C-alpha cells in the first residue's frame, strides 16, 4: 500500500519530466535521421539553453516562457554555424570523424563556458506554485513545461509534414542522392536540420532550467538520457522520441518505489544496451 502511494506521488512528476526529455531527444534523433550523425555537442547546447533562461530571466527579467523564443532562434543559428564549421566536411566520412568533430565542438563550448561561467551551480528562482492531485503535488512549472513540450512536438510534426522545407527534410532523410536529383538544395536542408536539432536541445535546456539547478556540465546527463530515449523511440524518428521520453520518465517514476534511486541509471543504461542489441531500430521503428 505504502508503495502504491509512493508510486502515485512520483509517477506524475516522472511523466511531466519525460515530455521535456523527449524534446531534447527529438533534437538528437532528428539530426541522426537526416544525416546519420550523432551530435555529441548536444549536452553543452542543452546547458547553453539553461543559461539562456538564466540570463534572460534573472538579468533582464524576461518571463522564462517568453524567453524561449530568443533561445530557440539563437539555438537554430548556433546549429547552422556548427554545421558549416564542423559537420559539413565530414558528413560522408566514417562515423568516427563525425563523432569526433561534434565532440570537439562539445570541448570548445564547455571550455569557453567554464572559463566564463565557472562550474558552480546556477539556479533560476522561478515558481508557478502547484496543486494537489490525490497524494501527489504537481508543480506548475513542470506542467507548463510538459504542455510546451507537446506544443513543440506538434509544431515540429506540422513543419515536417505540411511545409515545403519540412518535406525537403524528410526527402533528404529518405534518400539524399535522390532528393538532390529532384532539385532539393541538400546542403541548406542539412544545415537547417542540424539547426532544428540544436534548437530543440536549447529549448529543452531552457525548460529544464526552471526545475533544477544547473551548471555548464549539466547538459551531459541529459545528452545521455537523449541517447537512451532516441534508441527507445527509434533513432531518426522524432515523434517516437516523445514516447521514448515518456517511457523514461515513467521508469524514473516507478523504479524508486522498489529499489534505491541510485539504481535508476544502471537500469536505464542496461535497458539502452539491451534495446540496441535486440531492436536497434527502436520500439517504434526508425526513420520513416
Amino acid at each position, binding site marked *: 500500500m505504502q508503495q502504491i502511494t509512493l508510486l502515485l506521488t512520483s509517477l506524475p512528476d516522472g511523466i511531466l519530466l519525460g515530455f521535456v526529455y523527449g524534446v531534447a531527444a527529438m533534437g538528437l534523433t532528428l539530426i*541522426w535521421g537526416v544525416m*546519420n550523425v550523432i551530435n555529441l555537442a548536444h549536452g553543452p547546447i542543452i546547458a547553453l539553453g539553461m543559461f539562456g533562461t538564466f540570463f534572460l530571466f534573472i538579468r533582464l527579467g524576461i518571463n522564462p516562457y517568453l524567453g524561449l523564443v530568443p533561445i530557440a532562434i539563437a539555438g537554430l543559428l548556433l546549429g547552422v554555424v556548427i554545421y558549416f564549421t564542423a559537420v559539413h566536411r565530414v558528413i560522408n566520412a566514417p562515423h568516427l570523424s563525425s*563523432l569526433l568533430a561534434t565532440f570537439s565542438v562539445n570541448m570548445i*563550448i564547455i*571550455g569557453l563556458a567554464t572559463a566564463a561561467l565557472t562550474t558552480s551551480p546556477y539556479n533560476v528562482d522561478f515558481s508557478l506554485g502547484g496543486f494537489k492531485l490525490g497524494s501527489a503535488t504537481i508543480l506548475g512549472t513542470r506542467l507548463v513545461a510538459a504542455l510546451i513540450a507537446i506544443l513543440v512536438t506538434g509544431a515540429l510534426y506540422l513543419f515536417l509534414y505540411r511545409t515545403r522545407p519540412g518535406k525537403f527534410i524528410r526527402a533528404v532523410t529518405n534518400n539524399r542522392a535522390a532528393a538532390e536529383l529532384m532539385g532539393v538544395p541538400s546542403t541548406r536542408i542539412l544545415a537547417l536540420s542540424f539547426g532544428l536539432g540544436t534548437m530543440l536541445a536549447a529549448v529543452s535546456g531552457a525548460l529544464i532550467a526552471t526545475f533544477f539547478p544547473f551548471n555548464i556540465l549539466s547538459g551531459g546527463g541529459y545528452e*545521455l538520457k537523449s541517447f537512451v530515449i532516441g534508441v527507445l523511440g527509434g533513432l531518426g524518428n522524432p515523434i517516437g522520441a516523445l514516447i521514448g521520453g515518456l517511457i523514461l520518465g515513467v521508469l524514473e517514476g516507478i523504479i524508486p518505489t522498489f529499489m534505491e534511486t541510485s539504481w535508476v*541509471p544502471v537500469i536505464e543504461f542496461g535497458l539502452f544496451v539491451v534495446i*540496441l542489441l535486440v531492436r*536497434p531500430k527502436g520500439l517504434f521503428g526508425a526513420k520513416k
Partner: protein
Amino acid sequence: MKSWQKHLGLVLPLLVVAGVVLWPIITDNVSARESAFTILKAIALASSLNILLGYTGYVSFGHIVFYGFGGYVGLYFVNDHGWSIWAGMLAGGIASGILAFLLGKAILRLRGAYFALATIGINEAMKAFANNFDLFGGPIGMVLNFSVYKAYGGAAEALKMTFYIMAGLTFAALLISHFVRSSKFGLGLLAIRENEDAAEVMGVIAPNAKTWAYVLSAIIPGMVGVLFFFKNGHVEPPVAFPLHSSIELLVMVMLGGQGTVLGPILGAFAYQGMRGYLVTSDFFKDIQLSVSGVVLLLIVLFIPAGAIGWLRHRIPVLRRVLA
C-alpha cells in the same frame, strides 16, 4: 619479405618508449618520473584501443570501462584479500579480458555509430553499478590501507616500482600491437575494417576475430587500471569510468594515426605534451579544453589519417619504417 624486415616497424616505437622510460632515470627527477608515468599510461591505453579502433575499425567510445573495471577488481583483491600487486594486476587483466569477451559476443554485432553508442551505454551502466555495489565500496570507492606499501619497502619505493611496472606494461602493449598487426590474425582484422562482408566471404571468421581483438585491447587497460589505482591509493566511480578519458584516447589515436603501431604512441606523447603546456600556460590555462577542441577539429577535418598516416601517404619510402 625477409623476416627481419617484417619487424622493422617495431624499431621506432621501441626507441620512443625507451626514451620516455630513460628520461626520468637519467635525470633522476621525481617530477619528471610522474610526467613520464602519465605519458606511458597514455601510450599503453591508446595502443590497446588502437587494436580495436585502428585495426578492426570499431569505434569504442567507452574503452575506459576496461581500465575502471579491471582496476576495481584488482584493487579489491589487493585491498580486501591482501594479494600482492602482481596477483592483483593479473586478476584485473583477466577480469577485463573476460568482460570484453562477454560484451564482445553481444555488442560487436552492432556496426558503426550503434556500436559507439552501446559502448557509451556500457561505460555509464558500469559506473552507475560501481556506485551501488557494496563490495566495491559504493559511491565512496575503496581506499588502500597505507600499510599495503610496506611489503614493497615503503611508499616511496612502491611509487618507484610502479613506474617500472608501467614501463613494462607499455612495452607489452607495444609488442601486442606490433605482433597483432604483422600477423595473419591482424590481416584478418584489417580486412574487417575495410569491408566486413567481403572479409567474411574471403574466409575471415569475423565474429571470432572481432571478439579476440576486443579482448586483446581490454587486457592491458585492465592491468594499467590496477596499477594506477594502487599508485593513487584509492578508487571511486567517477575516477574509474571517466567518459572524457575514453574520448581523449580516441583523440590520441587519431592524432598520431589510427591503424599504425607508432601513431598512437606519438599521438599520446603529443596530446599529453600539449595538455601539459596548455594547463600551465598563463594565457591558455582557462580555455585549455577549447584549444584542445580546436586542435581536434582541425585534425578531424583536414588530416583524418593522423600524422603517421599522412607521412606514409606522402612519402612512400617511409612506409617500411613507419608501421
